[in-house]
C-alpha cells in the first residue's frame, strides 16, 4: 500500500511536525520521532496541561498518594533537551487546506505533518439533570480539579457505570470516607469483560470496602436541589438515593468535536488505516481518538482506548514517519488494572463468555482474593489467554506461550516460571496445578512422576 515511502508523508528535512495532544500516544510519538529524526521541528500542543502526565495516576492525586508533579514521567528539562516544543493552549479547529492549527487565543500554527492524538471525552447519555452542579465524569486534569472542589466536605455520592473509571472513582471517594452508592446496569461488575467468577470476586471486594453496590440498577434522573445542584438520583427501580455528588462513568469516546465540521473523515473517531493515515495527506491519528477502518486483529476493536495501545500507536506512527511504513500490528493482547486492593492482569484472549470450542480452567484461593483463569481450545488444548487476580504473572512468559501456541498442560506445568509476585509470597502455582490435574485428569503437578511414567511406558 505504501510501497513508496515518499508518498506516506512529507519527508523534507526541517519538516514541522505538530502533535495535538500530550498524552501517552502523542508524547511517545514525539519522543520516538526525535530519536530517529534529528532535524524535524516538533511541537506538542495541549490545553490540558503544559507537561505530559500519567492520566492513569489522576486518582492517586485525589487520594493523596502523590502530587501532580509526581505523575509527570519526565522532568521538566526533558522537553527542551530533546527539542520538543510545548504549547499549552486549546485548539479551536484545524484548517486542513492551509495546514494551520487554529487556537482560541493565539496565532495559527502551520504544519507539514499533523498528528492528532486528542484522546477521549466522557460519555453522557442525556439523562435529565446531567448538567447540574455536582455531576461529572473523570477523564482530564480539569475533571480532577473539578472533582476536588465538588466533593469538598461531602458525605454521600452516587457513581453511575460499572467500569474501570467508576470503580476508581469509588475508591477515590472512599479514601475520603465518602459514602458511595455504585449503580451498575449489568448483572455483575464489568461483566462484559470479566467472566462470572472474576466479576463476582470484584463484586465481593467492592462490598468489602463498604460500598453500596447496586447491580441491575440504572439511572433515570438526577434531581435538582432547587439551586442547580444535584441532591439525589432516581433509579429505574423508582428509588431515590440522596447524594451530594454524582459520578458519571459510563465510558469514554473519541475527543473529536472540534474536527467534526471539516474535510477530515470521522465516524465515532477519526477514521484511519492501519498506518494511522487519515483521508487527508500528512494528517495522522493515534491513540484513543483513532477509529480504524478495519480492526487491527480479530480480537481487537476498531477503537483502542488503553494506555498500552496508545503507546504502541505512537511508536508505530513515529517509525512510519521516519522509515519505510509498516502496518500497525499489535501482538498478544495484555492489560492490567487494580480494583481497590486486588490487582488484575490479563494476557491473550479471555472473553466473558465462550462457546464449546473453548474450555476454561479456573482456580480461586480459598480466601477468595486470588484467582487464575486459563482459556484454551477444547480440542487442541492450545492456550488462548489468562486472567490473573491478586497474582502477578510474567508478561514475557505469557507473550511467548500464547504466541507459540503452547498446550494448556505445558503452560500449567511451567507456571512457576510465570510467577512475578514479590519474594516470600505464598506460591500458588502448585495449588493451581493440583487443581488442574484434578479437573482435567492430567498429571502435570508432579512432573517427576510423569517423567518416570513416560520412561516406563516406552
Amino acid at each position: 500500500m505504501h510501497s513508496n515511502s515518499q508518498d506516506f508523508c512529507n519527508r523534507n528535512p526541517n519538516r514541522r511536525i505538530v502533535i495535538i495532544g500530550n498524552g501517552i500516544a502523542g508524547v511517545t510519538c514525539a519522543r520516538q520521532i526525535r530519536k530517529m529524526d534529528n532535524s524535524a521541528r516538533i511541537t506538542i500542543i495541549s490545553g490540558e496541561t503544559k507537561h505530559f502526565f500519567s492520566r492513569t495516576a489522576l486518582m492517586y492525586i485525589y487520594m493523596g498518594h502523590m502530587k501532580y508533579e509526581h505523575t509527570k514521567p519526565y522532568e521538566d528539562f526533558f522537553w527542551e533537551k530533546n527539542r520538543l516544543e510545548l504549547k499549552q493552549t486549546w485548539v479551536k479547529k484545524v484548517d486542513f487546506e492551509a495546514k494551520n492549527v487554529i487556537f482560541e487565543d493565539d496565532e495559527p500554527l502551520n504544519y507539514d505533518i499533523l498528528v492528532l492524538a486528542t484522546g477521549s471525552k466522557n460519555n453522557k447519555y442525556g439523562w435529565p439533570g446531567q448538567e447540574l452542579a455536582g455531576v461529572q465524569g473523570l477523564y482530564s486534569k480539569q475533571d480532577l480539579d473539578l472533582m476536588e472542589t465538588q466533593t469538598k466536605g461531602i458525605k454521600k455520592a452516587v457513581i453511575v457505570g460499572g467500569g474501570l473509571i467508576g470503580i476508581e472513582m469509588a475508591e477515590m471517594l472512599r479514601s475520603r470516607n465518602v459514602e458511595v452508592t455504585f449503580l451498575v446496569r449489568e448483572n455483575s461488575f464489568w461483566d462484559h469483560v470479566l467472566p462470572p467468577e472474576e466479576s463476582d470476586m470484584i463484586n465481593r471486594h467492592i462490598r468489602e470496602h463498604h460500598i453500596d453496590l447496586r447491580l441491575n440498577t440504572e439511572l433515570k434522573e438526577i434531581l435538582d436541589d432547587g439551586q442547580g445542584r444535584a441532591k439525589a438520583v432516581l433509579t429505574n427501580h423508582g428509588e431515590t438515593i440522596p447524594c451530594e455528588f454524582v459520578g458519571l462513568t459510563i465510558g469514554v469516546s473519541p475527543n473529536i468535536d472540534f474536527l467534526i465540521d471539516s474535510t477530515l473523515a470521522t465516524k465515532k473517531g477519526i477514521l484511519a488505516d492501519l498506518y494511522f493515515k487519515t483521508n487527508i495527506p500528512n494528517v495522522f491519528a493515534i491513540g484513543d481518538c483513532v477509529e480504524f477502518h478495519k480492526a487491527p486483529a480479530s480480537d481487537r476493536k476498531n477503537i483502542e482506548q488503553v494506555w498500552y495501545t496508545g503507546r504502541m500507536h505512537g511508536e508505530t506512527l513515529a517509525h512510519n514517519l521516519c522509515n519505510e511504513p509498516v502496518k500497525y500490528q499489535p501482538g498478544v493482547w495484555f492489560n492490567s488494572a487494580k480494583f481497590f486492593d486486588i490487582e488484575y492482569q490479563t494476557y491473550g484472549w479471555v472473553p466473558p463468555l465462550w462457546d464449546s470450542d473453548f474450555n476454561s480452567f479456573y482456580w480461586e484461593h480459598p480466601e477468595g482474593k486470588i484467582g487464575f483463569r486459563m482459556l484454551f481450545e477444547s480440542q487442541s488444548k492450545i492456550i488462548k489467554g489468562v486472567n490473573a487476580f491478586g497474582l502477578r504473572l510474567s508478561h514475557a512468559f505469557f507473550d511467548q506461550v500464547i504466541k507459540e501456541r503452547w498446550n494448556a498442560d505445558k503452560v500449567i506445568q511451567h507456571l512457576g516460571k510465570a510467577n512475578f509476585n514479590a519474594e516470600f509470597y505464598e506460591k500458588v502455582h502448585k495449588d493451581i496445578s493440583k487443581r488442574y490435574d484434578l479437573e482435567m485428569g492430567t498429571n502435570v503437578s508432579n512432573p517427576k512422576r510423569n517423567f518416570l511414567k513416560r520412561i516406563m511406558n516406552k
Partner: protein
Amino acid sequence: MKNIQIIGLAIFVLGLAIFSIIPFLGSYQLEKEMVADTVKEEHQEILLDILQPMYGKTYFSNFAFVSDYRNYFDQFNGELKEKEAWDEVIWDDYAFALTKASTKSEVKNQPFLFLGISIFASVIGALLYIFPLYRHQPEGIKNDGIYHSSMKSRGVLGIITGTYLILFYIILYWFPEYMTNLVWMVDPISMGLSGNPATQWFLYGLMYTLAILVMGIRMFRKYRGNKYQTLRTASVMFFQISFAFLIPEIMVLLNKPWHDFKNIWPLDYSFFYDYRMEGMLSSGAIGMFMLVWGIILIVIGVPLLTYFYGKRWYCSWVCGCGGLAETLGDPYRQLSDKSLKAWQVERYMVHGVLVLAVVMTAVTIANYFSGFGLLGNATNQLHSFYGFAIGSAFAGVIGTGFYPLMGNRVWCRFGCPLAAYLGIVQRFKSRFRITTNGGQCISCGNCSTYCEMGIDVRWYAQRGQNIVRASCVGCGVCAAVCPRGVLKLENGPEKGRVNDLPIIIGNDSITVKN
C-alpha cells in the same frame, strides 16, 4: 480516627512534653568528692582547685551550673592557651560527668516514675495509636492522604518535628550536660544490664531501640499482607534489639569493650582507631573474635553477600541506621528528591565520604604501625573532623533530623560510606536487580514517589529496563505500591541483568529500542 487513637496520640504528646521538660527539673550542687570521683587522676589536683568556688553552692538550673563551670574551666584553659602551654591544657570535657554527678532532682530519686510518664508513656500512647490502624480494612497498602498530611508532606507539623529532632541531636552530640536528668532516668536500666551508670549514649540507644520496635509494629500494620515487608521489618527489629542494644551491654558486663557485631567499617568508622584496637586486642578470645569478625565482614561478608542478594541484605535487613529509617522514617519515605540533579549530587557526596573514610583509616593504621610518631597530629585532626562532620553532624543531625524534610534515607543516600562500598559491589558485581514486567507499566509514578533513595524507578520501568542502581537498598516498596505488578526484586543470573537497550513487548509492528 477512633477514640482510642485520639487518647493514644494525646498520651504520646504528653509523654513527649514531659520528656522535653525533664531536663529543666531539679537543682545542681557540686561537691569536692564528685570531682575526685569523676575526673582523671592527672587532672584532679587542678580541677579540685579551680572548681572550689562551686562546692556546696546550689544552682537552680543546669544553665546556671554549666555556665559557672565553663567560666572557671575556660578561664584556666584560656590562660594556658594564651601562654601556648598546649601540654598543660585540659582537653577532656568533664561538663557532662560533673553535671550528672551534681544533679539533685526528683527524676534522679524516682527514675522509674519519670521514665514511666515520659518515654514509656510515649511508647504506650504510640502503640494505642498504631494498633487500631487499618483495622476492619482489607489487606493492602493504603497511602491515602499522605500528601494531604501536614506531618508527611513537609507541612508545619513536619517542619516542627524536624526541628525538634535536629535540636535533640544537637544537644545529644554537643551539649549532653543539659540532659543529665534524662540520663539519670535510665541509670537503673543501664546498671541492670551492664552494671555501669548510664551515659547519654545509653539513653540514646534505648530510645533508638524503642523507636524501631514501636514503629516496626506500625510497619506490620501498614504493610499487612506483604510478606517481604513484614520479614524485613522483623529482621531490623531483631538486629537492633540484640546486636545493637543488648549484646554490646552484655559485652560491657563481661568487662569487654562495647561492641556491635553487625556494624561494619567504614560505617563503623572508629573500628581501626587505636583505642578500639587496644580494646579488642586486650580482651582475650572475644576481643580477637571482634577484630577478626570485623575484618571478615569488610573483606568477605560485604562482597559475597552483596553479590548474592544485593546491598539490601545489610541496608534494609540488618543495619541500625537502615532500621531506624525503615521504621521511624517510613512515613517520610516519599520526601526524597528524585531529580537527576539530586542523583548527581548524591554520587559525588557519598563516594566523597567513602574516600574520606578510607584516607582517614589509612592514616590511622599507618600511624598505629609507625608507633604514633609523625602521623599522630594528622590522625587526631582527621578523627575529630570526621567525628564532628560525618559521624555526628551528617549521620545524626542531618541523617535523622531531616527525615520530615528530605526523606528517611538522607544519610544512607548522601553520606554513608558503607552504603557507597556496598553500592559499588551491587552496581558492578551482583545478582540482584529489580525486574520490570514487560509492557505493563503505566508511568503512574507510585514507585518513584515512594522510593526512599530517590531513584526514579519509573524512568526504567516505563522503558522496560531492569533497575540496577548502586543506591537501591532493596526495601521493596516500589514493587509493593505498583498498581500493575510491574516490579519484582530478584536475585538471578548476571546474564541479562543490565539491559541497556530494552524492548517493550506487545507491539509486533516494530521493535522499539528505548
